[in-house]
């Protein structure tokens, strides 16, 4: 044992032997344990310095802020996402309650959730600007092919992040938008059905779907994003920035400027603009939460997030027989065209006005998507039925947001953990004695023959409850509800019980 210790010490001494100046000894402790030699440390600090020493042909420009803006937004999403996870529970039972808790009760909860939700929209906007700038400047050409490919993967991952994150609050719009979104997979021949079931964790949407989306949103996709962001930046730094559009592609007479300080400053200003924009939006117009997902709702009109609206509108035009063309073939073709751009367009020409074909196809696709979005919006306004339902849905969301946070009763049924006053306990006995449970269920959650009575006390005041119990309305009678013919004292107790079941 003694011999082994000596050997280790001598190895350590050998490692620091060549240089024993005062400054060296300061780092000796760390060096021995990290295997970091002075030479390596110097290399590390110089490579850190090199981050700011990127030479930009043509100089710093406002046009180059989008990449670093996206990097900032990703960081913001990671931080706000981690904080949201402090309170969020990914289960169909609790997801909506915990998001309501964050939104309505936790200090700054609504603000942080709004930053995260608006952040995803901001990413889509800045991403489109970043891609468009790259495209117009012809920056995907030549040595930057791989940068473009890594960027395409990042684009897809970002869309995946927003799609999976949309379900997590488990409110009406989240539930129904994801139902439609996952159903789209069935258009894929042969593999579609199994893929959908794999994503949903079964044939139907449910708590397993939420778990799967949570894992994708929080573990798998962020890990892939991180890896591809690293690859994207690494490849970009290897290839070097394309810089300004040269006047002549053969002899680019451009002076270069270092990344630091001007470009860093411009990027910083852009990040400030993003922070200010998101902060003002999140503070003055926080993201709302709708009522909890109710799968039996047949009236709900789902609408996806704004950036999926054009695709949503596009799908309306494809009759069932040709749907596969519209849903699969054309989008796949466009995606391939997009990804393969640097391999299809091999000319060194970068000036957009000398590339009329590719620029006009790109412009056409974007104008087309914008137009589809506009048409969808106009259709929703013009159809009175749809407009009415959408207005009602908005009103429902507002009404839900106005109600104070209602904590969830622990235990399996809402009655299990309910604190009952003596009058309500007596009312519970009356409820059981009068066999109300047979139709309304032992835990009042309703059966196929009668609706739930949970929350009935919030729906009607005591007087109304008393009168409709004594004399049910026509609709109630049609459903099989009998008049409650009991002593006045028992009725008071019964109402106390019903009012305590929230």
């Amino acid at each position, binding site marked *: 044992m003694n011999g082994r210790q000596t050997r280790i010490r001598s190895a350590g001494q050998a490692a620091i032997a060549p240089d024993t100046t005062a400054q060296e000894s300061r780092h000796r402790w760390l060096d021995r344990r990290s295997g970091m030699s002075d030479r390596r440390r110097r290399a590390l600090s110089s490579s850190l310095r090199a981050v700011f020493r990127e030479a930009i042909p043509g100089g710093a420009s406002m046009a180059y802020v989008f990449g670093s803006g996206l990097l900032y937004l990703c960081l913001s999403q990671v931080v706000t996402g981690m*904080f949201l996870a*402090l*309170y969020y529970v990914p289960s169909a039972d*609790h997801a909506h309650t915990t998001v309501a808790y964050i939104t309505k009760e936790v200090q700054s909860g609504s603000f942080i959730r709004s930053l995260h939700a608006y952040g995803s929209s901001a990413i889509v906007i800045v991403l489109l600007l970043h891609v468009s700038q790259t495209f117009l400047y012809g920056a995907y050409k030549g040595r930057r092919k791989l940068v473009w490919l890594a960027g395409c993967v990042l684009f897809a991952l970002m869309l995946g992040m927003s799609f999976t994150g949309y379900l997590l609050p488990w409110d009406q719009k989240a539930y129904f938008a994801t139902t439609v979104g996952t159903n789209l997979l069935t258009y894929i021949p042969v593999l579609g059905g199994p893929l959908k079931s794999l994503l949903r964790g079964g044939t139907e949407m449910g708590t397993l779907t939420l778990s799967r989306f949570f894992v994708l949103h929080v573990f798998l996709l962020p890990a892939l994003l991180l890896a591809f962001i690293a690859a994207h930046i690494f490849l970009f730094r290897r290839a070097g920035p394309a810089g300004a559009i040269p006047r002549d592609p053969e002899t680019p007479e451009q002076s270069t400027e*270092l990344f630091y*300080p001007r470009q860093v400053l411009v990027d910083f200003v852009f990040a400030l603009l993003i922070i200010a924009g998101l902060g003002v939006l999140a503070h003055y117009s926080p993201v709302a939460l709708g009522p909890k997902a109710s799968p039996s709702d047949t009236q709900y009109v789902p609408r996806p997030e704004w950036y999926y609206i054009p695709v949503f509108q596009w799908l309306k035009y494809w009759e069932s027989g040709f749907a596969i063309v519209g849903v699969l073939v054309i989008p796949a073709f466009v995606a391939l065209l997009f990804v393969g751009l640097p391999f299809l367009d091999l000319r060194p020409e970068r000036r957009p006005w000398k590339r009329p074909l590719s620029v006009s196809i790109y412009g056409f696709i974007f104008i087309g998507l914008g137009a589809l979005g506009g048409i969808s919006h106009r259709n929703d306004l013009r159809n009175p039925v749809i407009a009415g339902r959408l207005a009602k849905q908005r009103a429902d969301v507002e009404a839900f947001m106005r109600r104070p946070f209602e*904590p969830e009763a622990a235990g399996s049924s809402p009655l299990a953990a309910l604190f009952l006053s003596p009058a309500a306990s007596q009312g519970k006995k009356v409820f059981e004695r009068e066999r109300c449970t047979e139709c309304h269920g032992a835990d009042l959650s309703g059966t196929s023959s009668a609706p739930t009575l949970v929350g009935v006390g919030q729906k009607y005041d005591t007087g109304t409850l008393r009168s409709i119990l004594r004399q049910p309305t026509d609709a109630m009678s049609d459903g099989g509800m009998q008049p409650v013919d009991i002593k006045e004292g028992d009725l008071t107790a019964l109402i106390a019980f019903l009012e305590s079941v929230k």
Partner: protein
Amino acid sequence: MNHPEQTRMGRAAAVFREDDDRLRRTPFGRRSFLGLLLGAGVASLGALLSVPLLRFLLHPLVKAKAQLSWKEIANVEDLASVTSPVKKLVQVEQRDGWRKIVLQKAVYVCRDKRGQLFALSSVCPHLGCSIAWHDEENRFVCPCHNGQFTAEGKLLGGPPPRGMDQLESKVEDGKLVVHYQSFRQLVPTKEVIA
């Protein structure tokens, strides 16, 4: 073939060298000042952004105290025969983050020398064990460290720093109601903690 990239890289290297020279000549030049400014900007922005995050994180610690709520124990007439302490259960609603839980807590209903009913918490002020009533010895004994109390909860002996904690109680509509609270352990005076 003429490689424009090569000349570009060459020029970049020249800029590096020039930049290095300048930095070496002026230890605190325009660039270091800019860097300082930028660093300060990033730091203050980070501090500003961490305010909502900290509020969010600390929310469970600064939540407002629960409101006073009276819990019913029993009808006073049912307690007429009480001479020595009797154990009663009281249901206490508590918030557990976004959940509402109902806990059953034991309280002792006792009668003082003037014949008034009052309630004692069954939680030992020493380390929080449940105190048991021993009828034959006419005293409360804590099973953990043998703290002993009179039928009115006064400390008789053992490690507890104070007597049993009396809970606020009153008679309302012929019912004894109690305000259930928890108190800090190991201190000589009664101090509410929840």
